[in-house]
């Protein structure tokens, strides 16, 4: 009898585990993501990023419980916003952030306390600030640096934390505490961390190597 109970119990636990395992990614999902994830590092056009974001969003909406496609979709939109910042088309930033925000929120609901999500939050807030720095500095600037702090606390080995910190230092005017020297140090650190960084899976965030290299070659 005891044995029966034991079997029943284990099977119950098993089903419970299995039910949880429902959340485990399917092979189809991983394959689809594997095809897209590397493009995050190599897509540098507005149209390309739109297409990529759409692709991630389709997977996100089909899967519903995976945080990565939401994360990547938001990342593509934020990267697009950054491109508009470089061309000073500032009025195009807010509409993109309005798309990115719910995606980022969704990713955070599905995956709590992840350094990568806090990095993305940092990028989101910096992007919002860049649309109108004078008026938004107080709110979004503070939120951005707090998000980055949290990202570092959650994973001090995350190379993207150092990349983002480096970019901040690089573009902040010296009077406001920016420094190209210190930025370079941070990019070097990011580069080292990148080499030893092992993403949790083939589809977990590992982007940034290209950008780090770019900043290291800048004088």
């Amino acid at each position, binding site marked *: 009898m005891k044995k029966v109970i034991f079997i029943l119990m284990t099977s119950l636990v098993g089903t419970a585990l299995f039910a949880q395992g429902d959340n485990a990614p399917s092979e*189809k999902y991983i394959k*689809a993501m594997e095809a897209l994830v590397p493009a995050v590092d190599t897509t540098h056009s507005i*149209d390309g990023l*739109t*297409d990529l974001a*759409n*692709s991630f*969003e*389709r*997977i996100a*909406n*089909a899967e519903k419980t995976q945080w990565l496609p939401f994360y990547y979709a938001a990342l593509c939109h934020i990267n697009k916003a950054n491109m508009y910042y470089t061309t000073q*088309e*500032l*009025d195009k930033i*807010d*509409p993109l952030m*309005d*798309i990115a925000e719910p995606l*980022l*929120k969704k990713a*955070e609901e599905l995956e709590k306390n992840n350094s990568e999500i*806090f990095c993305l*939050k940092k990028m*989101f*807030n910096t992007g919002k600030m860049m649309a109108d720095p*004078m*008026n*938004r*500095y*107080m*709110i979004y*600037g*503070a*939120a951005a*640096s*707090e*998000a980055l*702090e*949290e990202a570092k606390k959650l994973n001090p080995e995350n190379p993207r934390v150092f990349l983002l910190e480096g970019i*901040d230092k690089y573009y*902040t*005017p010296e*009077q*406001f*505490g920016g420094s190209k020297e210190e930025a370079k140090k941070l990019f070097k650190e990011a580069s080292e961390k990148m080499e030893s960084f092992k993403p949790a899976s083939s589809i977990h965030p590992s982007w940034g190597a290209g950008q780090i290299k770019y900043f290291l070659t800048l004088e």
Partner: protein
Amino acid sequence: MKRRKYIFLFLMVSGLFQTISAQVIVKGIVKDNKGNPITGASISIKDSYDGGTSDSSGRYSFKTFEKGEHILQITSIGYKTFEQSIKLESGILTIDATIKEEISELTAVVISAGTFEASDRKRTAAVLNPIDIVTTASANGDVTGALKTLPGAQQVGEAEGLFVRGGTAAETKIFIDGTLVNNFFQSSTPNVASFGRFSPFIFKGTVFSTGGYSALYGQALSSALILESIDLPERTSASLGISIIGVNGGYQRLSKNKKSSFGASYSYTNLAPAFAIFKQEQKYSQVPEFHSGDLNFRIKTSKTGMLKYYAYFNTSHLDFTIPSIDSLGYKDRFGLSNVNIYNNLAWKENLGKGWKINAGISYTLNKDKIKSGMKDNYKNEVVLNGLEFKTYDLDLDANYFNVKLILERKFKGLTALRFGSEYNYSNEKSVFKLFNGQQFPDRLKENIKSFFAESDIYITNDVAAKIGTRVEHSSIVNKTNIAPRFSLAYKISKQAQASLAYGIFYQDPERKNLPSPNALGFMKATHYIVQYMKVTNLRTFRAEIFYKKYENLVKTGIVNGREGVAINNNGFGDAKGFEFFWRDRKTIKNVDYWISYSFLDTRRDFLNFPYATTPNFAAKHTASLVIKKFVQNWKMQFNGAYNYASSRPYYNIASDSTGYKFTDKGLIPAYHNFSFALNYLPTIGRRDSKNFTVYVLSISNVFNLKQVYGYKYSYNGMRKEEIVPPSRMFVYIGAFFSFGIDRTENAVNDRLF
């Protein structure tokens, strides 16, 4: 071996065959309802990974291995989701789609005629940011000061308030969180504009309507200034300020869960040091001295709900003399002490199913003690023959109570219905004491009950209308009015829009002219406004033409020896003009400037005017230039402003047996004012800094130009004197420190999400 190969081949062929038979190419074109191609739309087979993105010609094409019945979904920001059932079998499936624009705040036309908005919302009507109110050089940190650089408002220096489009200051009503504020400005001093009571830092949004405003507001013939107070503070902090005119300190505490906050502040203002440097026209026996304090709490009652309480307390004293115009060698004395308590409780909440509630209560207690008289050269009080009337005491004791309730129901798109009710109660007691001790007590009660309903109707993203009606009953005139309001906005292009506004506005006779021996009615104004506005990235252009018709304005006369008593509603008038506004943050790098110009043609017959004429508060041309430049290297912001007003009329009105007459008339010189302000922010940009410091230097009338606001006349009308500002130039120096305290560790978690 051979057999194996065979099997392999078979597998390959069948696999290939399967692939060919299963693969469907879905393609088509996505267009909007005007036939323009949509770029970047996401096309997907619902609940699958398959889909594509439309290119610049709206074309898309993708492969899918899905089979059978599915739903093709097309989404694009600003458009309604398109869905169509499809059957995937084989070959090529062509689906062309027309997607409809979604009505959204981002793309929809804004009903903006007559309105200036200062908020951080990304809206077309938001021509200013909240910070602009504080950093406009000529504003001197006063809420209404910044608004005077916008078209529509006059540069009136001898009295407080906003004189809008030919209207008096009393025709502008001010609201905080929806409810009426009765004593927005410090109590009046003759020929000196007093400051607003409230710090600009307690407001996050300002809507300044120069006409055609919403049915939610009433009892203002010309203009409504709608202020929205701030929500929860960013963090717990303490603040300290020191300036040439006083000191202030405050503390704000944000609870650990960031759902509530409370705070208090106190400020002491004493103008003695400033007046020692800048010689005043007035000779003070008691320099203006103010004690002000405030208390607040804010509670997040739910995810969408917020309860806010703000209380303000103020006492002030001043007493001065100026050389009397009526009798050489003597001085006119004016003394004023004021106690003011203001309380405002506001609550907003989403009730679900598209319903929203906004409720507010405010209570004000205001006491003024005015002492008027004459003094001789030895500072002794004297009563001169024939000028006894100049010696009097006036004690005012007023209570005001205002309640407002608004219910809002949001429908599809941006269409909304709002309705509600407002109640304004005022109870003013006054005691007028003559030189001989004779007392005239008086009491005036006013009850106004209002109901209003208003609907925003968005027909498409390009056409929207706001239709509203307000019904008011006032006990003081014992009459009911019905005031319709209507505005329409049309989007001409992506960046340009045109709007129209029409409305009828009623206002009770001013209490200072009451009680009247005769039955009176509401004063009435009708507004017609046409606006064109174009907003591009970092640039705003706005032009407005308006016509305003006044009817039933109060006429005054002498009743029982008292001057200025309302006798009938036979007054009338009109105002017409056009205005331009241009703001540009793009042309010159790091420089932000705006220019406004107003043309005003107005005449009116009201109060004791013998006939219709242009009133002394209306200049034909007014213009302002405001420039702001932030110099990063120095962490300094330079703000400059130039305000101009063409000659305003002046006149003296006296009565004889046949009635009132203009005994003298003319034009004052044009008004020029250059102001400059410098803000130094040494802590800006330091990411790790929890403290924030601002040093302020501001100079009004930099070139020490002579400014004349008008003329005052002796009682007998024989002599006139210029009305000039208390001092020509004024310099303000101050330092403000804010210290962030107790930043909790996971502050970031609820910061934005």
